[in-house]
C-alpha cells in the first residue's frame, strides 16, 4: 500500500495550476537545484544553464492554466530544460559528436529521459541525506567524500583527534544508511503480490 507519496509536490502543483504564486516560489526553491544540475549535463557554462532553467520556470508559470495532472509539472520543467539545452547546444556546435553522446541513436528519447530522471533524483536524495546530518558530521562527510581527505588530514583541518574523526565519519555513514533505510518505496502492487506468494510458498514447505 502506498504511503508518503511525493505528496507535498502534488499539492504544490495543484495550487500552481490555480495561480498561487507562493506555491510557485516554493516549487522554484525546491526544483531549481535539480534542474540546474540536470541542465549542466548538456551545457558547459553555468550562466547558460541558469538561463534555460529560468526560461523553463517562466514557461511553466505562463502556461500553468493548461497544466492538468500533477506529475506532469515536474516533467514539464525537466523536458523544457532538456529541449532548450539541446537546441542551444545544436546552435553552438552544429552536428558535433557531442550530440551523439547525448542521444544514442538506438535509444528512444523517452527511455533516455526516464533514465536521466533516476540519476537526478538519486543524487538529489543523496545530497538531501547528507544535508540532514548535524553540521559537524556533515563537514566530516564532505571533507572525506568531496575533498577526498584522509581522516588524518580532516583531523588537522578541524583540529580534532583522528580517532574522533574516524568514529564520527562512521556515525555519519550510519546515519545516512538509516535515512535511506527509512525512505519508503512504493512498489508496483502486482509485483508485491507475486513476492508475497513466493515467500508464502517457501515458508509453507
Amino acid at each position, binding site marked *: *500500500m502506498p504511503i508518503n507519496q511525493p505528496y507535498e509536490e502534488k499539492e504544490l502543483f495543484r495550487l500552481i495550476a490555480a495561480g498561487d504564486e507562493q506555491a510557485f516560489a516554493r516549487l522554484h526553491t525546491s526544483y531549481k537545484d535539480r534542474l540546474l544540475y540536470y541542465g*549542466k549535463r548538456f551545457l558547459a557554462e553555468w550562466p547558460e544553464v541558469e538561463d534555460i532553467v*529560468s526560461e523553463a520556470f517562466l514557461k511553466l508559470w505562463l502556461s500553468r492554466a493548461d497544466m492538468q495532472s500533477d506529475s506532469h509539472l515536474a516533467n514539464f520543467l525537466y523536458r523544457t530544460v532538456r529541449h532548450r539545452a539541446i537546441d542551444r547546444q545544436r546552435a553552438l556546435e552544429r552536428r558535433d559528436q557531442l550530440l551523439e553522446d547525448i542521444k544514442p541513436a538506438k535509444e528512444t528519447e523517452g527511455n533516455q529521459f526516464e533514465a536521466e530522471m533516476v540519476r537526478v533524483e538519486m543524487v538529489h536524495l543523496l545530497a538531501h541525506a547528507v544535508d540532514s546530518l548535524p553540521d559537524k558530521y556533515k563537514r566530516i562527510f564532505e571533507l572525506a567524500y568531496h575533498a577526498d581527505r584522509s581522516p588524518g588530514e580532516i583531523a588537522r583541518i578541524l583540529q580534532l583527534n583522528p580517532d574522533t574523526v574516524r568514529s564520527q565519519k562512521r556515525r555519519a555513514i550510519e546515519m545516512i544508511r538509516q535515512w535511506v533505510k527509512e525512505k519508503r518505496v512504493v512498489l*508496483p502492487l502486482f509485483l508485491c503480490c507475486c513476492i508475497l506468494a513466493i515467500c508464502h510458498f517457501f515458508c509453507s514447505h
Partner: protein
Amino acid sequence: MKFQATDIATLLLKKISGQLTAAEAAALEEWKNASAANRREYEALLQLTVVKDELKRYRDAQAAGKRLTIPTEEVASITIPEDTQDTTSPPTRTPFLRRYWAAASILLLLGLGAYLFYRDSSRPQALTSDNKHLPKDILPGRDGAILTLADGRQVVLDSLGNGLIAMQSGSQVTLQDGQLAYDPTGSVSGEAAYNTMSTPKGRQFILQLPDGTRVWLNAASSIRYPTAFVGSERKVEILGEAYFEVAKNANMPFRVNVNNRVEVEVLGTSFNVNAYENEANISATLLEGSVKVAAFQGMPSDRPVTLKPGQQAQIMQVGQKARSGIKVINDADIDKVMAWKNGAFNFTDVSLKDVMKQLERWYDIEVIYESAAPNVELTGKMTRDVTLNELLKNLGDLGVHCKLEGRTVVVLP
C-alpha cells in the same frame, strides 16, 4: 510497468547501502531490464566514483541555485490578464528570443514592468532573500490525505472543496467538511474495486466506509478497502495507526489486516490499532464491544485472544514477522492511546525515544541523537496544534534539550 524516478533512485541508494529487500531487488531488476538506457544508468550509478562526481556537480548546481532567486511579491504581479494579451504580440513563440536571457526580456515585452527572475551577483544577499520565504518554525500537522482510486489515479484531499470526488464501483465518493464518505449506490458490477487512502507525515484524515464504519487515520498511515462490501465479510488492510468505529452488522464480520502480521476480527464496535513499523509492538486497544486478535505467522502456541473493553493486545514485531505471542494488558491507558484522535499528545510514562517517534510523524521531521538517547520518561499532555518550537521549548523545560537544523531535530546530551 511505470516506475517513479524517486522510487528507483531510492532503491539504488538502498542497493548501494546493502539494504534491499527481496521484493525491492526484484523491482529494481525489472526496471534495469526495461531499456538499454536504464541498464547503462544502473551500471554507472553503482560506481562510487560516478556517484561522488555527480554529488560534486550537484553541489555546484546548488551554488548556482543561490544566484537564481525569485521574489514572491513580483511573481504576484505576473498574471496573464486578457487585455494585456490582446495588446501585445505573443512573446514566447518568437524564436529569436530563445537565445537571450529570456525571463526578463519576455516580461518587458509583455509590458508588465516586473522582473520574474533576476540574478543577483552578490551571493550573501541572494541567500537571505531566498531564505526569507522559508518558515522559521515548523507547523503542526493538519487534515489531509491522498486517495488512490481503483484505476491508480491519485487525488490530494487537503484543500479540495466539498463535493463529489469520484464514482467507484458500487459507491459514490464525496468530500464533506474534510471527511471522505462512500455512499453505496446499490449497483455493484463485477469484482470489488479497491481504493487506498494514505496520510503522509504531518497529516491525518477521517473516512467513512461504504458500510458506515468510520475510520480516523493518524499521520504516516494508510488503509486499503473495497469501494463496496460484498460477500460474507468486510475486509480492510492498514499500515500505521487508525481508530475504527465499526458499523454493526452481525452477518458480515469486519476484519482488519494489520501490516500482514496481525488480524483483528471485529465483533463489536470501537478500537484503535497502532502498527507503525518503527514501533516495537503492534497494539490493538478496545474501547467498546469486542474484537478478536490473531497473529498471521505467530508461534503455533499463539491462540487468538478476544479482548474486553479497556484491554490492549500487544504483539511484538521483529523483522518481517509478529513474534512471541500476544500479550494482553488489562487496564490500558485509554486516554493515552486515544490522545492522537482527540487532538492531543499524552506523554505519560512514554520514553523519550517513543515521544520523538510521534513528533517525527506529526511534524514531518527527523530526529537524531547527538549521543545515546537520554533515558528519561516524560509526563504531561499537550494539544497537537502547537508549533514545533513551542513544543521543543516545553521539552526544554522538562530537561530535554534539542536544536533544530532544517527539518532535523538534534537531541543534545
